[in-house]
């Protein structure tokens, strides 16, 4: 049977989307594969479809319970019953029952933490998996935004001989991250599918200002004159509040978004942005992960992002519907220093290594460092991982290397921003791809006219009518 027939019969789609078929064919040939496909481009189909061809269960290692549940639900929606998520809620007889018949499932989802447990290891040793999938594979690299030490342990579990093919999936990864994925997962000549980074409908601009102080007025003025919806990316919580406040004063429906906000508040902001109740979001890099909004037409940066991958991911949130969108980076001379300061602050220092060693020597849990505010939780995660992998002197060396590399990555972004050449070319070539043609209003260097890309702002009234509590309750459950 043709792949297209299987696609139609089990998933109801007429045609494959970009990259899916190539990846699936590689897997069916028994090859390892790395697939970088943007969110919403049907990454999961790359392992879902082979489930109807290969013999034996497919194991999917996924970092978040909510993501797992999403996948399980989506498979069930297509009528698949042989799917299970092994998580901590599976208890007692239910768990026993599931484990006894584990080999009969078509898809088995599991978290890396759960994978490491003895009971699971014992059961899994007896199963002939037909494919091992590592979802959100960038978590394995400390170059990624969400490095998860648990991911590194995946490799130690994968059998060395007669193992099934491995498929690594991610939405974003630079060359360095791809190298890490391949190395840590011990992949053998994998097939690589990397989605094109070129987005012809995004137009790139850099605005050079003589001083930092001029950024805020420039940005506010720009937002007042042009149509959104848009996102302003900035570096501190304080600045997200500042931008939001200034915009609100100009009668623009804007809100701040940063990691220090309550989880509910963050989701309310996402909902409101998605529904159009909010026009602008002033955010730190925390914003965007779970957002599916096609009509974002502007992404503004008031700083140099830490890596090219960050920049690409953030501007990539614009123009998902294919319409023209504008990405402006507002730049002033000291920006690189500032980003360097912020980014390297997140790395453990040699002092942290010493303190860690001291706790170990006293046979105390070094985790105390977090409670005593000697270190932040994120920094501790990185430190404790390396301390279990390398002797202390080597860790100091390693951290020094990391620091140097981070500084180098920032340099790359600064080069990209300051270069006297086409930004589109710079972006595409950074990710090892080449550019076929340039659209009109290409970029800062090639020439760009904002009015051709985004419309002049019309007045949108800021009305939020306060319902009575009974009205609200009725609206919630009509």
């Amino acid at each position: 049977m043709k792949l297209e027939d299987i696609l139609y019969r089990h998933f109801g789609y007429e045609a494959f989307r970009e990259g899916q078929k190539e990846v699936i064919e590689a897997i069916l040939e028994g090859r390892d594969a790395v697939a970088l496909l943007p969110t919403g481009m049907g990454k999961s189909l790359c392992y879902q479809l082979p489930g109807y061809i290969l013999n034996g269960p497919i194991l999917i290692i996924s970092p978040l319970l909510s993501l797992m549940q999403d996948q399980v639900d989506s498979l069930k929606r297509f009528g698949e019953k042989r799917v299970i998520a092994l998580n901590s809620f599976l208890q007692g007889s239910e768990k026993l029952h599931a484990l006894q018949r584990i080999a009969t499932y078509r898809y088995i989802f599991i978290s890396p933490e759960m994978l490491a447990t003895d009971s699971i290891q014992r059961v899994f040793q007896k199963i002939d998996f037909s494919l091992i999938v590592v979802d959100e594979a960038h978590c394995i690299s400390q170059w990624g935004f969400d490095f998860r030490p648990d991911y590194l342990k995946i490799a130690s579990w994968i059998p060395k001989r007669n193992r099934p093919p491995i498929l690594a999936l991610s939405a974003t990864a630079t060359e360095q991250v791809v190298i890490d994925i391949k190395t840590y997962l011990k992949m053998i000549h994998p097939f690589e599918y990397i989605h094109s980074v070129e987005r012809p409908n995004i137009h790139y601009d850099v605005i050079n200002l003589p001083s930092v102080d001029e950024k805020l007025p420039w940005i506010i003025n720009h937002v007042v004159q042009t149509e959104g919806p848009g996102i302003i990316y900035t570096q501190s919580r304080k600045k997200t509040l500042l931008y939001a406040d200034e915009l609100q004063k100009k009668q623009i429906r804007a809100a701040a978004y940063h990691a220090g906000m309550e989880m509910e508040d963050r989701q309310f902001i996402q909902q409101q942005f998605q529904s159009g109740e909010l026009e602008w979001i002033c955010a730190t890099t925390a914003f965007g992960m779970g957002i599916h909004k096609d009509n974002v037409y502007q992404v503004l940066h008031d700083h140099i992002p830490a890596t090219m991958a960050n920049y690409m991911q953030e501007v990539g949130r614009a123009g998902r519907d294919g319409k023209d969108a504008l990405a402006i980076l507002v730049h002033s001379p000291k920006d690189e220093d500032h980003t360097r300061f912020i980014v390297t602050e997140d790395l453990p220092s040699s002092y942290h290594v010493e303190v860690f060693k001291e706790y170990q020597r006293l046979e105390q849990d070094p985790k105390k460092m977090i409670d005593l505010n000697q270190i932040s939780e994120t920094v501790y995660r990185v430190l404790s991982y390396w301390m279990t992998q390398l002797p202390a002197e080597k860790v100091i060396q390693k951290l020094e290397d990391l620091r140097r590399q981070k500084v180098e990555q920032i340099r790359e972004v600064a080069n990209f921003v300051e270069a006297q050449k086409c930004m589109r070319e710079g972006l595409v070539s950074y990710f090892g791809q080449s550019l076929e043609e340039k659209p009109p209003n290409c970029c800062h260097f090639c020439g760009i006219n904002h009015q051709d890309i985004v419309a002049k702002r019309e007045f949108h009234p800021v009305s939020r009518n306060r319902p009575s509590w009974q009205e609200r309750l009725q609206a919630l459950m009509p």
Partner: protein
Amino acid sequence: MYIQQVLLSIFSSMNGQRSSKAALHLLRGKRSGQTIQDVGTFHLHKYFGILPKLSKNTFTDELNQLIDAGWVHINDGQQAIITARGKTLLQQSKELLFNGWYYRGNEHIFFKRLSLVVQTLSHFHAGDYRFMPLQKDEEIQHFVKQFLMGKPYKETNFKNQFRDELEESIQQLPIDDKHKLTIVLRITGYRLSGWTWQQLAEEFDATELDMQLILIESLHIWLDDLYAKRNQYPFLHQLAAGIRLENVLNDSTKKTADLYYNGYTPDQIAQVRSLKISTIEDHFVEMAMNDIDFPLNQFISEEDANKARDVMRQTGSKKLKVIRESIPHLSYFQIRLVMAIKGG
């Protein structure tokens, strides 16, 4: 200003006998002997642990505002003393009905359960079975799944029944409409976003912290009501399961209590548990505060206890030192027990 009223009320109860920082520990719900003892001594159960994440900066800012407004002054011993103007203001304000001692932040768990139930019913009613749950917490999701299981949750009838119960229950609560609205604006539904604290604060011309306190107080009042009227609101009562602390002793204190009621003396308990005697004494103070049947007279004669009470009444002081000076043969431990005893 909610937070300021809370602080004024605390300082007024402490009556200048504790440093202002004691109020911060109280609001954060610090589990130390001193704070627990303060709760009993000054009858501050209401406010215990209502703001576990209150930062020292915020606390200091609010305190300074009270001082600037002339409602409180700080004396040499860093104690906050409520002024006459502060007292008048407090008397004119509506009584606050927090119940921190029994909920200790669990009110948020109740609210998260409720919010997920409403979100689910709202989306199912609209035919959307694949919405993103607002509550990511696995335990909340699990609880709600269990709650809905066995109920006809996809039926319009059930949704209406649940909504009506919710409306009736909120309707009769002794809180302002503004507070009722705050509750429902923090809940989301199909194509209906929630309001952030910032948005609520702007709408009601208050601070974000005040809006949060309004929700917490409303939830305490609501939960008290649900626990009092078990059968009237069966769905909500189910959602409130396990939220109120029935046994308020902490685990370590519970162990001490078990040993004590099995015949061990405080000294023996300290030895068996390898804990300092002062820690064991803290446990006894906590027991005295919580257990109506605490056998006070095994530690101090009724006569001495009455003497101590007299001194407290006459001097108006609840300072250990003052009482000890008047009745030198009593130990600090004995005095603390008298002060802590429930209803004392």
